[in-house]
């Protein structure tokens, strides 16, 4: 099977250019100084099995047109599910009227940075098998087979399996002449084994990350599902029988399957420039990493190098061009432990007097405006760093944390608390068993400042999420975070049963 590089004909057959041309010319004639149009179609499938039998099934296609304008320095936006020239003209007029209505409330003039024009570009993400080309029965059978393997074990009482698969198609055009048409695919599958005991229940989930693959993700080539499922019942049984953690300070080896989420929350969101200047203050929050600290803030230890990008292969935030027609790129966010960069869209770049965007505009629906969303934000491995086994051997006394579970961080991205799927106790360089009821709690800069070992390239894994939320009305985006394993010095470990006062 080769990589697919064509956009589906039934999307290209929609009146994409006619609709965007109509909206641009109508809005321009009505006084707009800027017009951008998105014609989008996103198909999302969900299959959830409980104890290997279907519980939830959906197959939803969201399509429509969104028209955004600037008139006299004020925004206007309108959208409709109908993809037609006539509706596009109406939307253009509604958006212009909305901009005029908004003008008295807009005390700051909206402007956008200038970007190169890309005419009639197309781009398709790297995937082999369109998940929607696989029959519903075959998809169900694969999840049922993996669930049934777990249920065969006496250690497993119940299972839950979820697969979500998305195909996103976008035609973008603006009044400067840029027009792009893109298609990308992503998949997320999680399978959980549950053990019911007299003292309550415990669960353990597969560590496979969501990723920019098609249905080929569910074979054993890119992720060895069968091998992971085979190991899970014994790992779960060991967790059930393991001691409850003694709270205190421990050296912690955070596996990439857990560290990606800590990166997402404490670096990814904190370096969104719109947040840092207050645009999300009523909802998602602000950031301690304010622009006055650029190039001086010591974010973490000197081993810390973090990049932002929209072009990592199979990355969930990877595109050819963003939702403002800006080409995908990569840049530094943290260099040798110092904050050196932010995530930008064209409007935020202009608001802070920068020359260029770095391509972080995204909208999750034709009904929502593009806003600055997260690129793939990744911690770089140490090129000469240790292997995972070498890292474990190097630990005198500590805990390995694998897999993400619960996450929470404050609105300025200082204080966070995470749990995980597996907690392995290490003594004198050897894994001696699991622990349970573990959470780690820290302040962002203290935690990253305590990073004393960064794993080598062999430990690097691309993690990520489908469900990153931001903005009002709420928008959801998928994003990847690559990282190596890393060791942190003396992290505060809580016992979650003790926290509940029991």
């Amino acid at each position, binding site marked *: 099977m080769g990589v697919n590089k064509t956009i589906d004909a039934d999307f290209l057959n929609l009146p994409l250019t006619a609709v965007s041309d109509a909206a641009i010319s109508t809005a321009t004639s009505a006084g707009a100084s800027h017009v951008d149009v998105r014609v989008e179609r996103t198909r999302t499938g969900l299959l959830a099995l409980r104890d290997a039998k279907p519980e939830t099934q959906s197959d939803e296609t969201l399509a429509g047109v969104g028209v955004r304008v600037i008139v006299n320095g004020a925004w206007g936006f309108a959208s409709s599910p109908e993809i037609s020239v006539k509706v596009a003209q109406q939307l253009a007029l509604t958006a212009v009227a909305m901009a005029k209505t908004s003008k008295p409330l807009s*005390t700051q003039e909206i402007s956008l940075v200038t970007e190169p024009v890309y005419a009639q570009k197309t781009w398709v993400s790297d995937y082999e098998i369109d998940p929607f080309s696989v029959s519903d029965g075959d998809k169900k059978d694969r999840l049922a087979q993996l669930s049934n393997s777990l249920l065969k074990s006496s250690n497993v009482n119940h299972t839950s399996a979820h697969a979500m698969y998305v195909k996103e198609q976008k035609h973008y055009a603006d009044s400067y002449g840029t027009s792009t048409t893109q298609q990308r695919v992503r998949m997320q599958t999680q399978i959980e084994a549950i053990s019911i005991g007299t003292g309550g229940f415990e669960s353990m989930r597969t560590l496979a990350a969501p990723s920019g693959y098609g249905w080929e993700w569910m074979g054993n080539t890119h992720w060895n599902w069968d091998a992971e499922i085979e190991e899970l019942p014994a790992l779960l049984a060991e967790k059930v029988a393991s001691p409850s953690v003694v709270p205190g300070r421990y050296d912690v080896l955070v596996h990439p399957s857990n560290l990606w989420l800590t990166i997402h929350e404490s670096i990814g969101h904190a370096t969104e420039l719109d947040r840092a200047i207050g645009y999300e203050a*009523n909802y998602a929050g602000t950031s301690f990493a304010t622009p006055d600290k650029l190039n001086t803030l010591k974010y973490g230890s000197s081993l810390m190098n973090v990049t932002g990008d929209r072009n990592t292969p199979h990355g969930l935030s990877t595109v050819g061009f963003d939702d403002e027609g800006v080409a995908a790129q990569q840049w530094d966010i943290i260099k040798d432990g110092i904050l050196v960069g932010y995530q930008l869209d064209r409007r935020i770049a202009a608001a802070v007097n920068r020359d260029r965007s770095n391509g972080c505009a995204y909208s999750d629906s034709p009904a929502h405006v593009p806003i600055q969303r997260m690129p793939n934000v990744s911690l770089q491995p140490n090129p000469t760093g240790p292997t995972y086994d070498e890292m474990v051997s190097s630990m005198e006394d500590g805990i390995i944390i694998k897999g993400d579970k619960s996450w929470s961080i*404050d609105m300025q991205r200082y204080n966070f608390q995470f749990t995980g799927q597996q907690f392995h106790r290490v003594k004198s360089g050897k894994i001696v068993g699991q622990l349970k009821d573990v*959470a780690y709690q820290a302040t962002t800069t203290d935690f990253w400042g305590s990073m004393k070992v960064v794993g080598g390239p062999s430990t690097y894994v691309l993690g990520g999420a489908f469900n990153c939320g931001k903005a009002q009305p709420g928008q959801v985006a998928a994003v990847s975070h690559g990282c190596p394993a890393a060791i942190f010095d003396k992290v505060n470990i809580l016992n979650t049963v003790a926290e509940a006062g029991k």
Partner: protein
Amino acid sequence: MISAQDLIEKITSAATCDDCIVVVKDKTQANLRWASSTLTTNGVITERNVTVIAFIAQDGGMAAGGVSRTDVHESDIPQLLEQAVAAAKAAGKAEDFAPLATNVSLGDWNGQHVPTGPEIFKDFAPALGDMFARSVSHDIELFGYAEHTHETTWIGSKGGMRLRKDSPVGRVEMTGKSHQRSRSTWSGIETRDFKNVSVADIDADVRQRLNWQAKKVDMPAGHYDTILPSGSVADLFTYMLWVSGARDAFEGQSVFSKPGGGTRVGEKLSNVGFQFFTDPNYAQLPAANFVATAVSSPFSSVFDNGQPIKHVDWIKDGVLQSLIQTRATAALTALDFTPLGENAIMSVDGGKGSLTDLISKVDDGLLLTTFWYIRMVDPNSLLLTGLTRDGVYHVKGGEVVGATNNFRWNDSPISALSRIAHASATEWTQPREWAGDVTNMAMPALVIKDFNMSTVSPGN
């Protein structure tokens, strides 16, 4: 665009499967968003969602499969039906099967969707502009959001189901910051038509709370008697509802599972006369009196569409009464069929007065503004974690004496049920974290004893 009713008639009459349900949602919305006292985004939105669910008789039950699209033309109907039938066949006999309702009519089937639009803001927007101007001259920065949404849902079936409901809902959220953003406060108000929104009241609240923050005292982590405003109570107990699925409890996978098997229904959970219920006839929070769902989940079943929703007590007089059921899980658990309704009402016997009255009853404790970033830590105890946000106040001798730092907390709403010291009267309220997702809640403010503030958060 073809009307919802016509579309449903055309699809259900073209369907050759054993039954077919079509759910059409027409939604219109206008929204305004602002930051640093200037408008940042806005929108006028029209959305349609059409779900076709095919049912096929199988082994004494039925299989179901669904497909959803945003804009459906007559020519798309054969393909949609074909895809729905294929999904049903692939799924096999449904675990949540129960006989489908037939020939049931509820709501004004023939009425058109009444769109909302920016005109809903005709009084609000100029008042907001005036508030922006006043705030700028007083060095206060405003951040917030206003939204009005009208959603109409039609559900029709081949078997003669004809259901319709309308949900007009809106809200205003306002964050105020001053003194180089070192002070921060929030207030939120739910509305159906913006007639109950007073910008002057919001302005006064913002100013009073920013003034309360003139004096700041650092307080350490620890257990505090804590006043939760009604919106925070809504955020906390929404999580309890989300883990109230009967099957999860019955199968040992929730805080409502009884050790050794079965559910905790019948167990006393609260130290006070605590009532928590859903009721489609609750005057202030109108809600549909029938099940309407386009997808099956642990909480809902497409087979239950059109089944009546009545008053359901989740907790009555402090005793757990009901868990969220489909008809299939009701049979499995041998409990009554108690579907999740569209509102949630809490009251505490003897609870009266306002938040201000509650403050006067606390000798030494904390007053919160809102919770934030609430997540489950341990599902066995429903231990949740989260932050406080936009103002924590030290209350001494029944008065607010100053502002203090934010905290990360770890506590459980189930455990909190037995630590209720005082309650206010029940009021229509807006959760903070789940605003927009969870509406139609009436809650009291509560004083919870020994709330676990786990660490100090430097976040502001």
